[in-house]
Each structure stands twice: as structure tokens, then as C-alpha cells.
């Protein structure tokens, strides 16, 4: 950020991109510049929005989450430190919190629906079970049962049944291409937790596949 003044003394325009651009943009937002805030909205929310769509699957929920993310940005723009990472990583950290909250709300809602009359209390480990059962028949397409699915589809199906934390780490690694160090920043945990969480997510995935009669290693042998 100091670099900008050195490089572009006479130019008060934002630099086109990079660390300097991000630092200036956030400085302007911190000083309540609504134009800068608008730039950030159009430039950075598409990626965050798609990430959230994959997790939440509902445009209304994503709108809600993006609203909250933008509010947080407006209120705490001065906390962004370009030395600690890219702006997108910082934004993903905020988005991650909101998405996690909404996913957990969705999860409670599903649980209530699934176990309505039953008086049973579910614990963490039963989350996958309940959802595995409830999702055996695709609600949008009742004819199409899981058993008839292709292996690729069953993997997608299984990913959707993972706990929010596991689902998120998979998305961050495989869709967003984040290094584990970045994921540690985004999810606000130690790097070792990130690695372990990813490893557990993969194990859960294998368990879910096994329940449907697939060995995870079937996947690599040219099926699908």
C-alpha cells in the first residue's frame, strides 16, 4: 500500500489490480466511500455468490448471505490488512462464517422435517445418516432413485450429505483452489485442523459411498 504513493504520486485513480488496488479500495470503503463499495460488490461477489450457491443451493439464501457479507465489509473494512493476504481471502473468511451459519440453520430445518414426530435427539454423527435416508429419493424427481445413479452423480449426492464443515473444506480445496494456508485463514483454524478436516471429509465421503454399495476405489477404475 505504501508502494502506491511511491509509484504513482500524481495519480489518485485506483491502480488497476493487485495488492495496491485492494488496499486502496478498502481504505476508501473504510472512509465510507459508497462508490468504492459498489466496485467491490460487482467485482468480488460473483465468486463468493457461486461458492455459496454450491453450498446453500438457494438464491434467496445466497442473497441473504451476500447482504450480510457486504454489511460486515462496510462496518469493518479498516480491519483488512493486505499484508495478511488477498482481499478475496479476507472476503471468503467473512463469507465462510455466514455460509456456515446458514448451512447450520438449513440443517436444523431439515432435521426438524425429517424427524418431525420422532422424539429422537440427533447428534453430530447422525447427520449423514438422516440425510442419507431422506435423500434416497430425489424430491424433485421421485422416479429417479439413488441406486440408478452414475458413480459421478453418487459422489455429488454424497458430497451434499457431508456436514457443513466438511462440505466447505471440499469446496475451498477443489472448486476455489485454495492452498491449505489460505483455508486456515478463511476458516480461522490452525493449518493442521484444515488438513485433518479435509482427511475426515474424505473418510465420510467413503462411508457414504459404501452405504450405497460402492467402494470409493471403484471410482478410479474407469466406471461412470
Amino acid at each position, binding site marked *: 500500500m505504501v508502494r502506491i504513493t511511491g509509484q504513482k504520486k500524481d495519480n489518485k485513480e485506483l491502480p488497476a489490480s493487485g495488492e495496491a488496488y485492494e488496499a486502496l479500495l478498502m481504505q476508501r470503503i473504510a472512509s465510507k466511500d459508497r462508490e468504492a463499495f459498489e466496485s467491490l460488490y460487482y467485482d468480488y461477489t460473483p465468486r463468493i455468490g457461486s461458492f455459496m450457491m454450491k453450498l446453500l443451493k438457494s438464491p434467496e439464501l445466497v442473497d441473504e448471505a*451476500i447482504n450480510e457479507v*457486504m454489511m460486515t465489509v462496510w462496518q469493518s473494512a479498516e480491519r483488512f490488512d493486505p499484508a495478511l493476504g488477498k482481499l478475496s481471502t479476507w472476503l471468503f473468511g467473512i463469507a465462510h462464517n455466514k455460509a456456515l451459519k446458514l448451512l447450520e440453520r438449513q440443517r436444523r430445518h431439515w432435521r426438524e422435517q425429517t424427524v418431525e414426530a420422532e422424539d429422537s435427539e440427533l447428534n453430530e454423527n447422525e447427520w449423514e445418516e438422516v440425510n442419507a435416508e431422506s435423500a434416497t429419493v430425489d424430491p424433485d424427481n421421485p422416479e429417479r432413485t439413488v441406486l440408478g445413479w452414475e458413480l459421478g452423480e453418487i459422489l455429488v449426492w454424497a458430497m451434499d450429505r457431508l456436514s457443513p464443515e466438511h462440505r466447505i473444506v471440499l469446496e475451498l480445496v477443489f472448486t476455489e483452489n485454495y492452498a491449505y494456508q489460505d483455508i486456515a485463514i478463511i476458516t480461522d483454524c490452525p493449518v493442521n485442523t484444515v488438513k485433518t478436516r479435509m482427511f475426515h471429509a474424505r473418510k465420510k465421503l467413503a462411508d457414504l459411498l459404501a452405504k450405497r454399495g460402492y467402494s470409493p476405489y471403484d471410482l*478410479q477404475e474407469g466406471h461412470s
Partner: protein
Amino acid sequence: MTHSNNTEHDVVVELLPWYVKNTLNPKEQMRVAQHLSSCSECQQELGLYRQIDNVNLGTSNTPIWKPSPVQFANILQGIDALETKAATAATETTKVAKTPGLFAKLSAWLKALPGPVFWIMSLETMAIAALVMLVVGRLPQQLPGGQLFETLSNERPSVTANLPRLHIVFAEDITEREIRTLLQTQQGQLVEGPSMLGVYTVQLAAGGVQEQQAIINLRANAKVKLVEGIAKVDQP
């Protein structure tokens, strides 16, 4: 399935997802490649992660989310609401802080004033306090909506030394709109308040309604409990 070095395997097996995505640093990338050449278990794991990666990239059936001007307008509206609320909260905090030590605060404030001003101000304050007690019968309630002051003045109002000012106490059930109308008809502007006694200070516009006339007009309104002119205090 056998690996001579358990620790090395444990480290590498956890790095495999990032190895697939090529997001490890070069040193780690090499370390994984080296271990992979001799560990069948890791080779198998790697295959699984490659599959996850392919499937994940292939799921383009998720609808795309796009930003919209409507949403951005909503966000700005939310911010406006939030900022008004924050301003109100600040006003509330000041009020709360004042409430407990009413007389302590009052006397501290009076003592802090320079000599001559002290006497004029203290008389004025005591007088208005007495009047408030008389009219309302008790120390006034918190006036309707702490945000009144904020919403009725767009910018920080400035007190102009030689413009006439009035102390005013509104009825409990007065609405913000009624206050706005009331002040507009008298060309007055809220410049201060509510005080700990629920008193607002209204400044009349230069060349507008005369002070005495404004007092009469305001007193005629049923929603106004009390109106008093403020004696001008010359700058020392």
C-alpha cells in the same frame, strides 16, 4: 500398502488433495511426488481425489448467482438504517449515562461553568426544571424516540449565538411527524436535546417568526407541554 516410514506417509497423505490441485509450495509438491512413487496407498488416495476433483468441476448444474443493482440498493438501504440506529444508540447511551446521577451531573455541570455564566445558567436551568416539574408533575419521561434529534436534523445543527432559542417539552404521545410539522410552521430547528429533563432546545430562524409569537403559537398546541424563551447569554 507397506510404507517404510509411517510419519512420512501420514504427512503426505494429508497433503494429497492440494497436490492434486497443484496448490502446494514446490518443496511440498516434490516431497509428495517422491513419496507417491513408493506408496501404493497414497497412489490409491490420489486417484480418489482426482475423481472428486473431476466431479466437482463437472457440477455446472448449480445455478449461477449474479450481483444486481436491486440487491445493491437494498444493501445501501440496510446501511442507512444501520447508521441511523447507531446514531440513535449513541444518543441513548448519552441519555442513560446522564440519568443516574441527575443532580450530581447537574451541579457538576453548573460548577464547571465560568462565574457569571454559572449564575445565569443555573437560574435558567433551575427555573426550567421547576417548570417541568410543575407541568409534567414529575421528572419527564424519555421523550418519544431517541432518534428524534437525529431524524429531524440532517446535519449537525449549529447554535448561532444571537438567534432566539426556546426550551420546549413535548407531550408523551407526540409523533415525530407532528414535531416536524410544528417546528416547520414556526421555522424552528432542534439544536439540542432531549436533556435529562426531557427538554429540547429549538432555535428560531433569522428573520422568521418572532420569538414571542412562536412561544404563543407553540403553547397553543395541545402536544406541547412547555415552552420558554431562553435568555441570551452574552459571550464572556
